[in-house]
């Protein structure tokens, strides 16, 4: 089959259009990308952890609780020891420890996973508030910024790829490591097998409970790291309830990413992107309708590129391009001021829309979901 340059041309044109639009409105695409990366990092960490947990067949709704415990543990340790790195380790350890409470209750005592996960969130929020009482208003040691020599000086690519804080690189490593582990190693295959059918895995002699506990601990450690990313990197300070729903969004991202590392990463960036973009649109005095235009543009480009690669055009392609143009015309013609409440809602509305779209194609969604997700495993024999 002849490969065509057309798909790449479409992608590049779409990116070029975005860059031109940003520059024309005084937005710096490079700085925007960097900000979005920073905003996406904690979400990505928590979502990756939860993805592994769910791949092993366990649904842990306590991500929010583990994140905030990580946030305070990391913050307190960094303040006491003066080392943000020890803070990160403490955050991961605290998240893992809390998740093992969940693991013990659900795996050993066979409690209901949904109820236990919710309880874990409430418990984590309360415990963090208690632990953090004497840490409000303190300043943590500043987090190391890792500019990789030489390559970080490359224009455009340098700042986007090679001049972040350490946590971004750690997250990238965890992302690659998780993908490699799940799909390229025997242990990963076993973990997925446990998630697909725990009875069969048990019959084959695999230690279902032990494997699941390990996955739960990994998920807790990742959530803890994500929390520390909030309290040590994004806003270096501790405040009660500072995760503000990030854990729930991480849970949504796992579904959005249909339990695949690459798509989970995409979901984290989309979500971080919406949060950052709505602030930037405000500051640049642009209407929030441009978010709608952006959404249509991304979808239309995706459908077109896929159509060009496979050789058959999807029927939604033309309507999507029409919607892109129509919304752009709307945004240009009526720069209406939108109530700030709606702006703050945008990330959550996007999550809901995505979840609806995902579940509309039931067959496809179910194909990827681990078959034993959330089911209780009774050990027999």
């Amino acid at each position, binding site marked *: 089959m002849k490969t065509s340059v057309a798909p790449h041309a479409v992608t590049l044109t779409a990116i070029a259009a975005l860059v031109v639009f940003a520059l024309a409105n005084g937005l710096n695409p490079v700085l925007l990308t960097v900000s979005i990366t920073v905003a996406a990092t904690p979400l990505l960490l928590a979502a990756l952890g939860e993805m592994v947990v769910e791949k092993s067949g366990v649904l842990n709704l306590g991500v929010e609780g583990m994140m905030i415990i990580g946030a305070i543990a990391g913050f307190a340790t960094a303040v006491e020891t003066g080392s943000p790195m020890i803070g990160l380790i403490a955050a991961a350890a605290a998240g893992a420890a809390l998740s093992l409470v969940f693991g013990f209750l659900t795996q050993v005592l066979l409690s209901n996973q949904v109820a236990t996960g919710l309880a874990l969130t409430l418990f984590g929020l309360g415990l963090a508030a208690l632990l953090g009482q004497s840490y409000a208003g303190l300043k943590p040691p500043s987090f190391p910024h890792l500019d990789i020599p030489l390559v970080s000086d490359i224009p455009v690519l340098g700042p986007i790829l090679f001049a972040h804080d350490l946590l971004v690189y750690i997250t990238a490593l965890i992302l690659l490591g998780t993908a490699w582990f799940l799909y390229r190693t025997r242990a990963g295959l076993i973990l997925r097998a446990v998630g697909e059918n725990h009875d069969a895995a048990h019959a084959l002699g695999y230690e279902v409970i032990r494997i699941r506990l390990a996955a739960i601990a990994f998920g807790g450690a990742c959530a803890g790291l994500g929390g520390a990313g909030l309290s040590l990197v994004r*806003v270096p*300070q501790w405040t009660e309830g500072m995760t503000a729903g990030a854990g729930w969004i991480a849970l949504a991202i796992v579904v959005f990413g249909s339990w695949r590392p690459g798509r989970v990463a995409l979901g984290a960036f989309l979500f971080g992107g919406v949060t950052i973009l709505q602030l930037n649109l405000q*500051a640049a005095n642009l209407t929030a309708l441009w978010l709608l235009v952006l959404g249509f543009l991304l979808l239309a480009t995706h459908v077109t590129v896929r159509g060009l690669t496979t050789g058959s055009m999807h029927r939604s392609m033309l309507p999507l391009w029409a919607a892109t143009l129509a919304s752009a015309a709307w945004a240009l013609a009526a720069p209406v001021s939108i*109530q700030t409440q709606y702006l703050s809602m945008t990330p959550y509305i996007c999550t809901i829309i995505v979840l609806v779209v995902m579940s509309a194609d039931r067959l496809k969604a179910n194909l990827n979901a681990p078959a034993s997700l959330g089911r209780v495993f009774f050990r027999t024999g």
Partner: protein
Amino acid sequence: MMKRRTLLAGAALAVALSTNPVLADGHEPLKVGFIYVGPVGDFGWSYEHDQGRQALEAHFGDKVETTYLESIPEGPDAERAIRQLAQSGHDLIFTTSFGYMNPTMKVAQQFPDVKFEHATGYQRAENVSTYSGRFYEGRTVLGHIAGKMTESNIVGYIGSFPIPEVVRGINAAYLAAAKVNPDVEFKIVWANTWFDPAKEGDAAKQLIDQGADVILQHTDSPAAMTIAEENGIYAFGQASDMMQFGPNSRLSSIIDNWAPYYIERVQAVMDGTWESTDTWAGIGEGMTKIGEFKNMPEDLAAEAGALRDAIGAGEIHPFTGPINKQDGSPWLAEGETADDATLLGMNFYVEGITGDLPN
């Protein structure tokens, strides 16, 4: 028999307690309650109200007993919290955020014997007073400094909600900044919250990315100051001094000084002279204070100090004509000053500010 007597005595005591013999003999402590919108450790708005509460305890000693409830969201939960204070025998309750206005009015109607003081609102009743600082006077001083200090001519402004209080601050700061620097541009971001450090920090970061080198905020946490310090730009403390969060970044601050007012009002209740009043006090009365001038040239500090004193003495009004509204229609004629009613309901930008005011 014995039992019944004890029971009766207990009931009598309960009645006596609930009707609250207000300090006729000076031995019964006056119970004063506070409702805060953020944690007392926010180092901003709620922190300063709590400083006022502590000043009450220091001033009156065991003649008062204070209680506070922190991080109470504005909304239905606020009503429950206020009622809880009223029911538990508090004589005077300070509700310290704009969004507590309707809940305060509602609970006040049900507890006519309890006195209420609502900060920054405009609804009053027999037993509800309102009080607020003329923070916009401080904004004028800050705007003057911002206009002089900015090199990019872009000043970032983090708003909370588009209510008159906040809009007034933006206008006052802009007028003062534009007066000393006609090229100055304000970039305004609405965080849509009083207190969310992650969001406030993000907003500050995005403003810096878009070229702002001085940031003003009307949200409660020092997150923006922390980000400003990290990025080597300037910012101002809001509600509280916030010096410790930006030793190299903080230029000055608006400090809310509630203690004298709180002491005066508690004294009034003790003396039985408390009446429903409307207090709106500024730099002159000492309710709005301007923090020490730092990280700026000495002549600018002197200028800002002179401006502060002139406003305090009533020689300069922050809103003195000629001023047009954003759409170009005239608002104040040459030499005319704004009346309080217009200021209290301010829902428009002045000429020169770009962007639409959200409704």
